[in-house]
Protein backbone atom coordinates (compact mmCIF):
# COMPACT_ATOMS: atom_id res chain seq x y z
CA UNK A 1 0.00 0.00 0.00
CA UNK A 2 2.83 2.41 0.78
CA UNK A 3 3.78 2.51 -2.90
CA UNK A 4 0.50 4.16 -3.87
CA UNK A 5 0.69 7.86 -4.63
CA UNK A 6 -1.46 10.24 -2.59
CA UNK A 7 -3.85 10.57 -5.52
CA UNK A 8 -4.10 6.80 -6.03
CA UNK A 9 -4.64 6.25 -2.33
CA UNK A 10 -7.36 8.89 -2.23
CA UNK A 11 -9.14 7.22 -5.14
CA UNK A 12 -8.88 3.76 -3.57
CA UNK A 13 -10.23 5.09 -0.29
CA UNK A 14 -13.07 6.81 -2.12
CA UNK A 15 -13.83 3.57 -3.97
CA UNK A 16 -13.94 1.67 -0.68
CA UNK A 17 -10.99 -0.58 -1.60
CA UNK A 18 -8.86 0.62 1.30
CA UNK A 19 -10.03 2.43 4.42
CA UNK A 20 -8.34 5.55 5.70
CA UNK A 21 -7.86 3.78 9.04
CA UNK A 22 -5.99 0.96 7.26
CA UNK A 23 -3.79 3.44 5.41
CA UNK A 24 -3.09 5.41 8.58
CA UNK A 25 -2.27 2.26 10.55
CA UNK A 26 0.07 1.11 7.78
CA UNK A 27 1.93 4.43 7.91
CA UNK A 28 2.34 4.23 11.68
CA UNK A 29 3.56 0.64 11.32
CA UNK A 30 6.34 1.94 9.06
CA UNK A 31 7.02 4.85 11.39
CA UNK A 32 7.53 2.42 14.27
CA UNK A 33 9.98 0.42 12.14
CA UNK A 34 11.97 3.12 10.42
CA UNK A 35 11.60 6.36 12.36
CA UNK A 36 14.26 5.28 14.90
CA UNK A 37 16.70 5.33 11.95
CA UNK A 38 15.41 8.28 9.90
CA UNK A 39 14.28 10.73 12.60
CA UNK A 40 11.91 12.58 10.28
CA UNK A 41 9.35 13.67 12.86
CA UNK A 42 9.44 16.01 15.82
CA UNK A 43 6.00 14.78 16.85
CA UNK A 44 3.50 12.21 15.60
CA UNK A 45 -0.16 12.15 16.55
CA UNK A 46 -1.39 8.61 16.12
CA UNK A 47 -4.53 8.70 18.27
CA UNK A 48 -5.72 11.92 16.71
CA UNK A 49 -4.91 10.65 13.21
CA UNK A 50 -6.77 7.36 13.70
CA UNK A 51 -9.78 9.15 15.10
CA UNK A 52 -9.80 11.55 12.14
CA UNK A 53 -9.34 8.64 9.69
CA UNK A 54 -12.23 6.72 11.28
CA UNK A 55 -14.42 9.77 10.87
CA UNK A 56 -13.43 10.07 7.20
CA UNK A 57 -14.30 6.38 6.67
CA UNK A 58 -17.63 6.91 8.38
CA UNK A 59 -18.47 9.89 6.21
CA UNK A 60 -17.44 8.10 3.01
CA UNK A 61 -19.65 5.15 3.98
CA UNK A 62 -22.50 7.58 4.56
CA UNK A 63 -22.06 8.90 1.03
CA UNK A 64 -21.00 12.39 2.02
CA UNK A 65 -19.18 14.64 -0.42
CA UNK A 66 -15.52 14.43 0.57
CA UNK A 67 -12.51 16.72 0.27
CA UNK A 68 -9.72 16.38 -2.28
CA UNK A 69 -7.37 14.50 0.08
CA UNK A 70 -9.98 12.46 1.91
CA UNK A 71 -8.31 9.90 4.12
CA UNK A 72 -4.73 10.45 2.92
CA UNK A 73 -2.05 10.51 5.69
CA UNK A 74 0.11 13.62 5.31
CA UNK A 75 2.86 15.34 7.29
CA UNK A 76 3.60 19.02 7.79
CA UNK A 77 6.81 20.80 8.64
CA UNK A 78 6.83 21.85 12.27
CA UNK A 79 6.75 25.58 11.51
CA UNK A 80 3.05 25.52 10.67
CA UNK A 81 0.77 26.22 13.61
CA UNK A 82 -1.61 23.50 14.79
CA UNK A 83 -3.97 23.55 17.74
CA UNK A 84 -3.03 19.93 18.41
CA UNK A 85 0.44 19.13 19.77
CA UNK A 86 3.31 21.60 19.93
CA UNK A 87 4.57 23.86 17.13
CA UNK A 88 8.30 23.97 17.80
CA UNK A 89 10.11 25.22 14.68
CA UNK A 90 12.72 22.72 15.90
CA UNK A 91 13.77 25.33 18.44
CA UNK A 92 14.23 24.99 22.18
CA UNK A 93 12.64 28.41 22.46
CA UNK A 94 9.30 27.00 21.19
CA UNK A 95 9.69 23.43 22.45
CA UNK A 96 6.52 23.65 24.54
CA UNK A 97 4.60 26.16 22.44
CA UNK A 98 0.99 25.22 21.77
CA UNK A 99 -0.45 27.42 19.05
CA UNK A 100 -3.83 28.99 19.78
CA UNK A 101 -4.92 28.67 16.14
CA UNK A 102 -4.32 26.60 13.03
CA UNK A 103 -2.30 27.93 10.09
CA UNK A 104 -4.50 28.54 7.05
CA UNK A 105 -2.82 25.65 5.19
CA UNK A 106 -3.67 23.38 8.12
CA UNK A 107 -7.32 24.49 7.98
CA UNK A 108 -7.24 23.78 4.25
CA UNK A 109 -5.78 20.30 4.76
CA UNK A 110 -8.46 19.57 7.35
CA UNK A 111 -11.18 20.89 5.05
CA UNK A 112 -9.78 18.57 2.33
CA UNK A 113 -10.16 15.69 4.83
CA UNK A 114 -6.43 14.93 4.90
CA UNK A 115 -5.20 12.96 7.90
CA UNK A 116 -2.37 14.98 9.46
CA UNK A 117 -0.16 12.38 11.11
CA UNK A 118 2.81 14.36 12.35
CA UNK A 119 5.04 17.38 12.31
CA UNK A 120 8.34 17.04 10.54
CA UNK A 121 11.84 18.01 11.64
CA UNK A 122 13.60 21.01 10.12
CA UNK A 123 16.50 23.37 10.64
CA UNK A 124 15.67 25.63 13.57
CA UNK A 125 13.37 28.40 12.28
CA UNK A 126 14.02 27.04 8.76
CA UNK A 127 17.56 28.41 8.86
CA UNK A 128 19.81 25.88 7.23
CA UNK A 129 20.41 23.57 4.31
CA UNK A 130 20.86 20.20 6.02
CA UNK A 131 18.38 19.94 8.95
CA UNK A 132 21.49 19.67 11.16
CA UNK A 133 20.51 22.98 12.77
CA UNK A 134 17.45 21.40 14.37
CA UNK A 135 17.58 22.13 18.08
CA UNK A 136 15.57 19.00 18.83
CA UNK A 137 16.76 16.04 16.77
CA UNK A 138 18.72 14.78 13.78
CA UNK A 139 17.19 13.56 10.52
CA UNK A 140 19.21 11.40 8.14
CA UNK A 141 18.85 10.83 4.42
CA UNK A 142 16.91 7.60 3.66
CA UNK A 143 19.21 6.95 0.68
CA UNK A 144 22.35 6.94 2.84
CA UNK A 145 21.95 7.34 6.57
CA UNK A 146 25.42 8.87 6.95
CA UNK A 147 24.25 11.82 4.86
CA UNK A 148 22.01 14.82 5.44
CA UNK A 149 18.49 14.94 3.97
CA UNK A 150 19.05 18.57 2.94
CA UNK A 151 17.15 21.41 4.50
CA UNK A 152 15.50 23.12 5.90
CA UNK A 153 12.45 20.89 5.16
CA UNK A 154 14.63 17.76 5.56
CA UNK A 155 12.24 15.95 7.90
CA UNK A 156 9.36 16.32 5.45
CA UNK A 157 11.37 15.19 2.41
CA UNK A 158 12.87 12.23 4.33
CA UNK A 159 9.35 11.23 5.45
CA UNK A 160 8.02 11.36 1.87
CA UNK A 161 11.03 9.48 0.44
CA UNK A 162 10.92 6.88 3.23
CA UNK A 163 7.17 6.29 2.81
CA UNK A 164 6.54 7.55 6.33
CA UNK A 165 3.63 9.59 4.93
CA UNK A 166 2.01 9.91 1.49
CA UNK A 167 2.76 13.61 1.01
CA UNK A 168 3.88 16.61 3.01
CA UNK A 169 3.97 20.38 3.20
CA UNK A 170 7.27 22.22 3.56
CA UNK A 171 8.30 25.86 3.41
CA UNK A 172 10.89 27.46 1.16
CA UNK A 173 12.68 30.74 1.89
CA UNK A 174 15.87 30.15 -0.12
CA UNK A 175 15.46 26.59 -1.38
CA UNK A 176 14.19 24.79 1.71
CA UNK A 177 11.67 22.68 -0.22
CA UNK A 178 13.58 22.17 -3.47
CA UNK A 179 17.06 21.36 -2.16
CA UNK A 180 15.99 18.63 0.31
CA UNK A 181 13.55 17.29 -2.31
CA UNK A 182 16.54 16.94 -4.63
CA UNK A 183 18.69 15.29 -1.92
CA UNK A 184 15.91 12.82 -1.04
CA UNK A 185 14.72 12.04 -4.59
CA UNK A 186 11.20 13.47 -4.32
CA UNK A 187 9.21 16.26 -5.96
CA UNK A 188 9.16 19.65 -4.22
CA UNK A 189 7.45 22.85 -5.36
CA UNK A 190 7.97 26.40 -4.18
CA UNK A 191 4.92 28.25 -5.49
CA UNK A 192 4.88 31.91 -6.52
CA UNK A 193 5.21 34.28 -3.59
CA UNK A 194 1.63 35.09 -2.64
CA UNK A 195 0.05 31.95 -4.11
CA UNK A 196 -0.31 30.22 -0.72
CA UNK A 197 -1.26 31.89 2.56
CA UNK A 198 1.52 32.30 5.10
CA UNK A 199 -0.91 32.86 7.98
CA UNK A 200 0.22 30.61 10.81
CA UNK A 201 3.58 29.85 9.17
CA UNK A 202 6.19 30.91 11.73
CA UNK A 203 7.95 33.79 9.97
CA UNK A 204 11.61 33.70 8.94
CA UNK A 205 12.07 35.97 5.91
CA UNK A 206 8.62 37.38 5.25
CA UNK A 207 9.24 38.66 1.72
CA UNK A 208 10.67 35.25 0.70
CA UNK A 209 8.81 32.54 2.69
CA UNK A 210 6.35 30.34 0.82
CA UNK A 211 4.65 27.03 1.70
CA UNK A 212 4.57 24.25 -0.89
CA UNK A 213 3.99 20.54 -1.51
CA UNK A 214 6.54 17.72 -1.16
CA UNK A 215 5.38 14.53 -2.87
CA UNK A 216 6.51 11.43 -4.75
CA UNK A 217 5.26 12.58 -8.14
CA UNK A 218 4.11 15.65 -10.03
CA UNK A 219 0.41 14.76 -9.97
CA UNK A 220 0.44 14.68 -6.17
CA UNK A 221 2.10 18.09 -6.10
CA UNK A 222 -0.62 19.40 -8.43
CA UNK A 223 -3.26 17.94 -6.12
CA UNK A 224 -1.76 19.41 -2.95
CA UNK A 225 -1.22 22.80 -4.56
CA UNK A 226 -4.91 22.92 -5.41
CA UNK A 227 -5.75 22.24 -1.79
CA UNK A 228 -3.52 24.97 -0.34
CA UNK A 229 -3.48 27.72 -3.01
CA UNK A 230 -5.63 30.79 -2.90
CA UNK A 231 -6.31 34.13 -1.31
CA UNK A 232 -6.58 34.41 2.45
CA UNK A 233 -7.94 37.55 4.11
CA UNK A 234 -5.63 36.78 7.05
CA UNK A 235 -2.50 37.19 4.87
CA UNK A 236 -2.36 40.54 3.11
CA UNK A 237 0.42 39.27 0.82
CA UNK A 238 -1.65 36.37 -0.48
CA UNK A 239 -2.78 37.31 -3.95
CA UNK A 240 -6.23 38.29 -5.11
CA UNK A 241 -7.59 35.41 -7.20
CA UNK A 242 -9.39 37.71 -9.59
CA UNK A 243 -5.92 38.89 -10.67
CA UNK A 244 -4.20 35.51 -10.54
CA UNK A 245 -6.75 32.69 -10.64
CA UNK A 246 -6.00 29.30 -9.13
CA UNK A 247 -6.28 26.60 -11.83
CA UNK A 248 -7.34 23.01 -11.45
CA UNK A 249 -3.73 21.89 -11.71
CA UNK A 250 -4.49 18.22 -12.35
CA UNK A 251 -6.83 18.90 -15.23
CA UNK A 252 -4.37 19.36 -18.09
CA UNK A 253 -1.35 17.89 -16.37
CA UNK A 254 -0.70 15.24 -19.00
CA UNK A 255 -0.96 17.67 -21.91
CA UNK A 256 2.57 18.50 -23.08
CA UNK A 257 3.45 22.13 -23.85
CA UNK A 258 3.69 22.58 -27.61
CA UNK A 259 6.75 24.44 -28.84
CA UNK A 260 8.34 24.48 -25.40
CA UNK A 261 11.31 26.85 -25.18
CA UNK A 262 13.79 26.07 -22.42
CA UNK A 263 16.53 28.45 -21.36
CA UNK A 264 19.73 27.20 -19.79
CA UNK A 265 22.58 29.22 -18.33
CA UNK A 266 25.73 27.23 -19.17
CA UNK A 267 28.14 29.57 -17.41
CA UNK A 268 26.20 29.43 -14.15
CA UNK A 269 25.61 25.68 -14.30
CA UNK A 270 29.33 25.07 -14.63
CA UNK A 271 29.59 25.57 -10.87
CA UNK A 272 27.86 22.25 -10.19
CA UNK A 273 29.56 18.88 -9.71
CA UNK A 274 30.24 17.01 -12.92
CA UNK A 275 27.66 14.31 -12.23
CA UNK A 276 25.01 16.92 -11.46
CA UNK A 277 25.78 18.68 -14.75
CA UNK A 278 25.61 15.36 -16.59
CA UNK A 279 22.17 14.57 -15.14
CA UNK A 280 20.99 18.07 -16.08
CA UNK A 281 22.22 17.66 -19.65
CA UNK A 282 20.54 14.29 -19.96
CA UNK A 283 17.29 15.78 -18.67
CA UNK A 284 17.57 18.57 -21.24
CA UNK A 285 18.01 15.98 -24.01
CA UNK A 286 14.80 14.27 -22.90
CA UNK A 287 13.02 17.56 -23.53
CA UNK A 288 14.90 18.05 -26.78
CA UNK A 289 13.67 14.66 -27.96
CA UNK A 290 10.15 15.81 -27.15
CA UNK A 291 10.64 18.72 -29.53
CA UNK A 292 11.63 21.44 -27.11
CA UNK A 293 13.86 24.26 -28.24
CA UNK A 294 16.90 24.87 -26.03
CA UNK A 295 18.17 28.43 -25.74
CA UNK A 296 21.47 29.28 -24.10
CA UNK A 297 21.30 32.55 -22.22
CA UNK A 298 23.27 34.60 -19.73
CA UNK A 299 21.86 35.72 -16.40
CA UNK A 300 24.74 37.84 -15.19
CA UNK A 301 23.38 38.68 -11.75
CA UNK A 302 22.55 35.19 -10.47
CA UNK A 303 26.08 34.88 -9.18
CA UNK A 304 25.22 37.58 -6.62
CA UNK A 305 22.06 35.90 -5.34
CA UNK A 306 23.60 34.31 -2.24
CA UNK A 307 25.19 37.59 -1.20
CA UNK A 308 21.92 39.50 -1.56
CA UNK A 309 19.89 36.74 0.04
CA UNK A 310 21.97 36.42 3.19
CA UNK A 311 21.58 40.14 3.81
CA UNK A 312 17.85 40.36 3.04
CA UNK A 313 16.79 37.12 4.73
CA UNK A 314 18.80 37.77 7.87
CA UNK A 315 17.60 41.37 8.07
CA UNK A 316 14.00 40.16 7.92
CA UNK A 317 14.79 37.37 10.39
CA UNK A 318 16.36 39.74 12.90
CA UNK A 319 13.11 41.66 12.93
CA UNK A 320 10.79 38.62 12.89
CA UNK A 321 12.64 36.86 15.69
CA UNK A 322 12.51 39.88 17.98
CA UNK A 323 9.16 38.49 19.15
CA UNK A 324 10.91 35.74 21.11
CA UNK A 325 11.27 37.81 24.23
CA UNK A 326 10.62 35.32 27.01
CA UNK A 327 7.47 37.25 27.92
CA UNK A 328 4.51 36.16 25.82
CA UNK A 329 5.41 32.58 24.97
CA UNK A 330 8.42 30.35 24.65
CA UNK A 331 11.42 29.76 26.89
CA UNK A 332 12.15 32.16 29.75
CA UNK A 333 15.42 32.15 31.68
CA UNK A 334 15.24 31.25 35.36
CA UNK A 335 15.98 33.98 37.92
CA UNK A 336 16.66 36.98 35.64
CA UNK A 337 18.27 39.89 37.47
CA UNK A 338 16.13 42.41 35.62
CA UNK A 339 13.79 42.69 32.66
CA UNK A 340 16.65 43.08 30.16
CA UNK A 341 17.99 39.69 31.19
CA UNK A 342 14.58 38.18 30.47
CA UNK A 343 15.35 39.02 26.84
CA UNK A 344 19.09 38.53 26.59
CA UNK A 345 19.38 35.31 28.60
CA UNK A 346 16.15 33.67 27.40
CA UNK A 347 17.26 34.19 23.81
CA UNK A 348 20.87 33.21 24.44
CA UNK A 349 19.85 30.00 26.22
CA UNK A 350 17.28 28.77 23.73
CA UNK A 351 18.38 29.88 20.24
CA UNK A 352 20.89 27.68 18.41
CA UNK A 353 24.12 28.96 16.89
CA UNK A 354 22.85 29.44 13.33
CA UNK A 355 19.81 31.39 14.50
CA UNK A 356 22.01 33.64 16.63
CA UNK A 357 24.41 34.11 13.72
CA UNK A 358 21.62 35.16 11.36
CA UNK A 359 20.01 37.50 13.88
CA UNK A 360 23.43 39.11 14.39
CA UNK A 361 24.13 39.39 10.67
CA UNK A 362 20.69 40.89 9.98
CA UNK A 363 20.91 43.31 12.88
CA UNK A 364 24.33 44.44 11.65
CA UNK A 365 23.10 44.91 8.08
CA UNK A 366 20.23 47.07 9.33
CA UNK A 367 22.22 49.04 11.86
CA UNK A 368 23.10 52.68 11.51
CA UNK A 369 26.08 53.23 9.24
CA UNK A 370 25.77 49.88 7.45
CA UNK A 371 22.20 50.00 6.16
CA UNK A 372 23.07 51.54 2.79
CA UNK A 373 26.16 49.41 2.21
CA UNK A 374 24.47 46.11 2.94
CA UNK A 375 20.67 46.13 3.14
CA UNK A 376 19.89 48.78 0.54
CA UNK A 377 22.58 47.40 -1.76
CA UNK A 378 21.09 43.91 -1.44
CA UNK A 379 17.61 45.19 -2.35
CA UNK A 380 19.04 46.76 -5.50
CA UNK A 381 20.84 43.55 -6.41
CA UNK A 382 17.55 41.75 -5.83
CA UNK A 383 15.96 43.96 -8.48
CA UNK A 384 18.77 43.14 -10.92
CA UNK A 385 18.23 39.42 -10.31
CA UNK A 386 14.51 39.75 -10.94
CA UNK A 387 15.42 41.66 -14.09
CA UNK A 388 17.50 38.70 -15.29
CA UNK A 389 14.42 36.49 -15.04
CA UNK A 390 12.13 39.03 -16.69
CA UNK A 391 14.56 39.25 -19.61
CA UNK A 392 14.91 35.46 -19.78
CA UNK A 393 11.16 34.86 -19.85
CA UNK A 394 10.84 37.11 -22.89
CA UNK A 395 12.76 34.45 -24.80
CA UNK A 396 11.62 31.22 -23.15
CA UNK A 397 8.85 29.44 -21.25
CA UNK A 398 11.07 28.22 -18.45
CA UNK A 399 14.61 28.24 -17.11
CA UNK A 400 16.20 24.93 -16.14
CA UNK A 401 19.19 24.48 -13.87
CA UNK A 402 20.47 22.19 -11.15
CA UNK A 403 18.75 22.32 -7.75
CA UNK A 404 21.98 22.05 -5.81
CA UNK A 405 25.65 21.97 -6.83
CA UNK A 406 26.13 18.55 -5.21
CA UNK A 407 24.16 15.53 -4.08
CA UNK A 408 23.53 14.96 -0.36
CA UNK A 409 26.67 15.65 1.65
CA UNK A 410 27.93 13.88 4.78
CA UNK A 411 26.50 14.70 8.19
CA UNK A 412 28.90 17.11 9.89
CA UNK A 413 30.71 18.02 6.67
CA UNK A 414 29.66 21.69 6.63
CA UNK A 415 28.44 22.45 10.14
CA UNK A 416 31.54 24.37 11.16
CA UNK A 417 31.69 26.52 8.05
CA UNK A 418 28.45 28.51 7.69
CA UNK A 419 29.54 30.14 4.43
CA UNK A 420 30.10 26.74 2.74
CA UNK A 421 26.63 25.71 3.92
CA UNK A 422 25.14 28.92 2.42
CA UNK A 423 26.82 28.23 -0.92
CA UNK A 424 24.83 25.00 -1.30
CA UNK A 425 21.76 27.22 -1.95
CA UNK A 426 23.26 28.90 -5.01
CA UNK A 427 20.74 27.54 -7.54
CA UNK A 428 17.56 27.89 -5.49
CA UNK A 429 17.83 31.30 -3.86
CA UNK A 430 17.18 33.44 -6.94
CA UNK A 431 13.60 32.13 -7.33
CA UNK A 432 12.79 33.40 -3.83
CA UNK A 433 14.39 36.77 -4.52
CA UNK A 434 12.42 37.07 -7.78
CA UNK A 435 9.20 35.71 -6.22
CA UNK A 436 8.74 33.12 -8.97
CA UNK A 437 7.82 29.42 -8.69
CA UNK A 438 10.38 26.65 -8.94
CA UNK A 439 10.09 22.90 -8.81
CA UNK A 440 12.58 20.12 -8.13
CA UNK A 441 11.93 16.73 -9.75
CA UNK A 442 14.10 13.61 -9.61
CA UNK A 443 16.25 13.42 -12.78
CA UNK A 444 19.13 11.09 -12.05
CA UNK A 445 21.56 9.55 -9.61
CA UNK A 446 25.26 9.89 -8.97
CA UNK A 447 27.69 6.98 -8.75
CA UNK A 448 27.05 6.70 -5.01
CA UNK A 449 23.36 6.04 -5.68
CA UNK A 450 22.27 9.46 -4.43
CA UNK A 451 19.39 11.29 -6.12
CA UNK A 452 19.86 14.37 -8.29
CA UNK A 453 17.11 16.91 -8.94
CA UNK A 454 16.20 19.02 -11.95
CA UNK A 455 15.01 22.53 -11.23
CA UNK A 456 12.47 24.25 -13.47
CA UNK A 457 11.46 27.88 -12.99
CA UNK A 458 8.69 29.86 -14.73
CA UNK A 459 7.21 33.36 -14.40
CA UNK A 460 5.03 34.26 -11.41
CA UNK A 461 1.64 32.49 -11.22
CA UNK A 462 2.40 30.13 -14.10
CA UNK A 463 2.31 27.01 -11.90
CA UNK A 464 -0.08 25.18 -14.21
CA UNK A 465 2.45 25.30 -17.02
CA UNK A 466 5.33 24.52 -14.67
CA UNK A 467 3.65 21.33 -13.52
CA UNK A 468 2.89 20.29 -17.10
CA UNK A 469 6.53 20.87 -18.08
CA UNK A 470 7.66 18.78 -15.09
CA UNK A 471 5.17 16.06 -15.99
CA UNK A 472 6.53 15.89 -19.57
CA UNK A 473 9.86 14.70 -18.16
CA UNK A 474 8.34 12.43 -15.54
CA UNK A 475 6.21 10.67 -18.14
CA UNK A 476 9.38 9.74 -20.07
CA UNK A 477 11.53 8.57 -17.17
CA UNK A 478 11.31 6.46 -14.03
CA UNK A 479 13.61 8.37 -11.64
CA UNK A 480 10.59 9.27 -9.51
CA UNK A 481 9.82 5.55 -9.07
CA UNK A 482 13.15 4.76 -7.39
CA UNK A 483 12.94 4.13 -3.69
CA UNK A 484 15.53 4.28 -0.95
CA UNK A 485 16.84 1.10 0.69
CA UNK A 486 15.12 1.23 4.06
CA UNK A 487 16.68 -0.71 6.93
CA UNK A 488 15.47 -1.13 10.48
CA UNK A 489 17.76 -0.28 13.35
Amino acid sequence: MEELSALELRDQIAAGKISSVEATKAVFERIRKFEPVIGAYISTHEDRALEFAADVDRRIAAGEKMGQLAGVPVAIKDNMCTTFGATTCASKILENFHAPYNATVVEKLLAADAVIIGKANMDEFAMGSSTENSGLKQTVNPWDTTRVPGGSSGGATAAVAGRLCFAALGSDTGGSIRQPASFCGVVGLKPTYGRVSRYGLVAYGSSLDQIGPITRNVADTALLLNVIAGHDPADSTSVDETKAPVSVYLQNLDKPIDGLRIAIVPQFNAGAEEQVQKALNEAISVYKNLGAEIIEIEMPHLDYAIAAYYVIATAEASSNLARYDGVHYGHRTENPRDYVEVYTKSRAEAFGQEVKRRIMLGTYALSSGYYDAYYLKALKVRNLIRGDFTAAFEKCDCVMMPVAPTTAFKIGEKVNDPLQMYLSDIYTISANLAGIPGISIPCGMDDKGLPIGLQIMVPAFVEEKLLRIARMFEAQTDWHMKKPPMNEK
Partner: protein
Amino acid sequence: MARRIDQQQVRKVAKLSRLDLTDHELEEFTSQLGAILEYVEKMNKLNTDNVEPLAHCLPVSNVFREDCVKESIGTERALANAPERDESFFKVPKILDDGSGA
Protein backbone atom coordinates in the same frame (compact mmCIF):
# COMPACT_ATOMS: atom_id res chain seq x y z
CA MET B 1 35.59 49.21 0.88
CA ALA B 2 36.28 45.99 2.73
CA ARG B 3 35.31 46.55 6.31
CA ARG B 4 35.76 43.50 8.45
CA ILE B 5 33.84 43.44 11.67
CA ASP B 6 35.79 43.51 14.96
CA GLN B 7 34.93 42.06 18.34
CA GLN B 8 33.78 45.38 19.73
CA GLN B 9 31.29 45.76 16.89
CA VAL B 10 30.09 42.20 17.40
CA ARG B 11 29.54 42.99 21.07
CA LYS B 12 27.46 46.02 20.08
CA VAL B 13 25.40 44.02 17.60
CA ALA B 14 24.80 41.36 20.26
CA LYS B 15 23.47 44.06 22.54
CA LEU B 16 21.17 45.39 19.81
CA SER B 17 20.04 41.81 19.12
CA ARG B 18 19.30 41.21 22.80
CA LEU B 19 21.62 38.21 22.86
CA ASP B 20 23.83 37.49 25.85
CA LEU B 21 26.83 35.90 24.12
CA THR B 22 29.70 34.05 25.79
CA ASP B 23 33.28 35.13 25.14
CA HIS B 24 33.74 32.04 23.04
CA GLU B 25 30.68 32.91 20.91
CA LEU B 26 31.88 36.50 20.51
CA GLU B 27 35.19 35.28 19.21
CA GLU B 28 33.64 32.70 16.88
CA PHE B 29 31.00 35.09 15.51
CA THR B 30 33.62 37.78 14.89
CA SER B 31 35.52 35.52 12.54
CA GLN B 32 32.44 33.88 10.96
CA LEU B 33 30.57 37.16 10.42
CA GLY B 34 33.77 38.63 9.02
CA ALA B 35 34.01 35.84 6.46
CA ILE B 36 30.33 36.14 5.52
CA LEU B 37 30.53 39.93 5.18
CA GLU B 38 33.62 39.63 3.03
CA TYR B 39 31.68 37.29 0.75
CA VAL B 40 28.61 39.54 0.75
CA GLU B 41 30.71 42.51 -0.31
CA LYS B 42 31.07 40.96 -3.75
CA MET B 43 27.84 42.89 -4.40
CA ASN B 44 30.00 45.97 -4.61
CA LYS B 45 31.29 44.79 -7.97
CA LEU B 46 27.87 45.65 -9.38
CA ASN B 47 27.00 49.19 -10.29
CA THR B 48 23.55 49.85 -8.82
CA ASP B 49 23.48 53.64 -9.15
CA ASN B 50 20.33 53.68 -11.24
CA VAL B 51 18.62 50.63 -9.75
CA GLU B 52 15.56 50.88 -7.53
CA PRO B 53 15.62 48.80 -4.34
CA LEU B 54 13.18 45.88 -4.46
CA ALA B 55 11.87 45.07 -1.00
CA HIS B 56 8.94 42.99 -2.17
CA CYS B 57 8.15 41.12 -5.37
CA LEU B 58 4.44 41.83 -5.41
CA PRO B 59 3.05 45.25 -6.20
CA VAL B 60 1.36 45.31 -2.78
CA SER B 61 0.14 48.38 -1.04
CA ASN B 62 -2.04 48.60 2.04
CA VAL B 63 -4.85 46.11 2.11
CA PHE B 64 -7.99 47.29 3.82
CA ARG B 65 -11.00 45.45 5.16
CA GLU B 66 -14.25 46.47 6.72
CA ASP B 67 -13.75 47.65 10.29
CA CYS B 68 -16.05 45.17 11.96
CA VAL B 69 -15.86 43.23 15.19
CA LYS B 70 -14.84 39.61 14.85
CA GLU B 71 -14.29 36.85 17.33
CA SER B 72 -10.88 37.01 19.01
CA ILE B 73 -8.96 34.22 20.71
CA GLY B 74 -9.75 35.47 24.22
CA THR B 75 -7.62 36.06 27.29
CA GLU B 76 -7.19 32.45 28.38
CA ARG B 77 -5.88 31.20 25.04
CA ALA B 78 -3.73 34.29 24.59
CA LEU B 79 -2.10 33.69 27.96
CA ALA B 80 -1.92 29.91 27.72
CA ASN B 81 1.75 29.93 26.65
CA ALA B 82 2.92 32.70 28.97
CA PRO B 83 6.03 31.71 30.95
CA GLU B 84 4.58 33.62 33.89
CA ARG B 85 1.24 35.31 34.40
CA ASP B 86 -0.69 37.18 37.00
CA GLU B 87 -4.42 36.74 36.50
CA SER B 88 -5.09 38.30 33.09
CA PHE B 89 -1.59 39.80 32.66
CA PHE B 90 1.78 38.67 31.37
CA LYS B 91 4.17 38.94 34.31
CA VAL B 92 7.71 40.34 33.95
CA PRO B 93 10.34 41.63 36.39
CA LYS B 94 10.10 45.24 37.47
CA ILE B 95 10.84 47.63 34.59
CA LEU B 96 10.88 51.08 36.20
CA ASP B 97 14.14 52.06 37.87
CA ASP B 98 13.64 52.24 41.63
CA GLY B 99 16.88 54.17 42.10
CA SER B 100 18.86 51.17 43.32
CA GLY B 101 21.08 51.40 40.24
CA ALA B 102 19.97 48.05 38.80
